[in-house]
């Protein structure tokens, strides 16, 4: 198992550090106490700027149908994230849904969907720290959404639209989206002086762990997108 393999290569300090990062990282919600004030403020500024831009550019008053789907999708992602699959050894896995939101609603509405979910999780349930809300929105509502959407569009452009290519696009989008979001998370906590491990530990651990577990995110994303494309293709706004 992961724990046993690591003991062959690293000393206890790095083992504990890596495992602790993994534990926090797979839930992807950074708690309070991990980011220093510089990173906290910087990520708040980046996220607030992008979300403000998305609200302005989304032209919500002209897109009531998409707004309606945003509400349902945000509720669905919130519920899906509560299905927290615990893995033996103390870590856990849950669907994040950023790529799915980007693929279904497009990058602007997709980011607004995840930003709504992450903000409610933080403010109402203290899932993710208030000092880390900017970083959590950046990782899950911006990076995951934009990467997922972009990869899906690239795959469909290259292979053409079909049920199979939609699965492939959703799979690659979901997988890479969560992996890059995990790496971003590793950079943020690794560069924070308050966290005792540098990016040379946090980035590989977060990146590799999400690269492995992200396969499941990719499969779920691909399956949902291909299923919806058969049952109700109009729901995939990014293809309109």
């Amino acid at each position, binding site marked *: 198992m992961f724990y046993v393999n690591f003991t062959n290569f690293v000393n206890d300090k790095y083992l504990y550090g890596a495992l602790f990062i993994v534990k926090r990282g797979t839930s992807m919600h950074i708690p309070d106490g991990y980011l220093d004030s510089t990173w906290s403020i910087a990520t708040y500024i980046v996220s607030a700027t992008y979300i403000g831009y998305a609200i302005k550019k989304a032209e*919500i008053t002209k897109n009531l149908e998409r707004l309606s789907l945003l509400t349902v999708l945000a509720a669905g992602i919130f519920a899906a994230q509560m299905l927290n699959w615990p893995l033996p050894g103390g870590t856990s896995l849950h669907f994040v849904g950023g790529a799915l939101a980007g693929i279904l609603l497009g990058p602007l509405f997709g980011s607004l969907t995840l930003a709504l979910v992450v903000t409610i999780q933080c403010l109402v349930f203290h899932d993710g720290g208030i000092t880390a809300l900017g970083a959590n929105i950046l990782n899950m509502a911006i990076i995951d959404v934009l990467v997922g959407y972009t990869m899906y569009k690239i795959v469909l452009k290259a292979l053409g639209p079909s049920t199979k290519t939609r699965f492939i696009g959703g799979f690659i989008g979901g997988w890479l989206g969560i992996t890059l979001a995990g790496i971003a998370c590793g950079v943020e906590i690794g560069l924070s002086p308050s966290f005792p491990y540098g990016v040379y530990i946090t980035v590989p651990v977060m990146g590799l762990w999400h690269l492995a577990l992200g396969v499941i995110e990719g499969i779920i994303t691909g399956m949902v997108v291909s299923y919806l494309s058969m049952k109700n293709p109009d729901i995939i706004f990014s293809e309109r």
Partner: protein
Amino acid sequence: MLLKKHWILIILLILISPLFGVVLADMVGYHEPLDVAAEKLGLKDISDEINWSPFYDYSVPGLDPITGYIVSGFIGVGIIYLIGSLIQRIAGKKR
């Protein structure tokens, strides 16, 4: 749109969520051993110290963990629905 069907699916997801978030977590010992490892390192999650929410970690005061998890799910989805409906109403009027 097939939204009604989706709301039913969301309700079902919430109802089964404690199986994963509470029951299985207890079975595999979700809080161990990594919290112990963190303590050995001197790492500190300060969430408890600055908590502001009565629904911390999807629990509800006075309810057992399973019921609290389900009620938390409905609270979260209810808030999302209210916010979405409010924005829709405002956006509809501005149209």
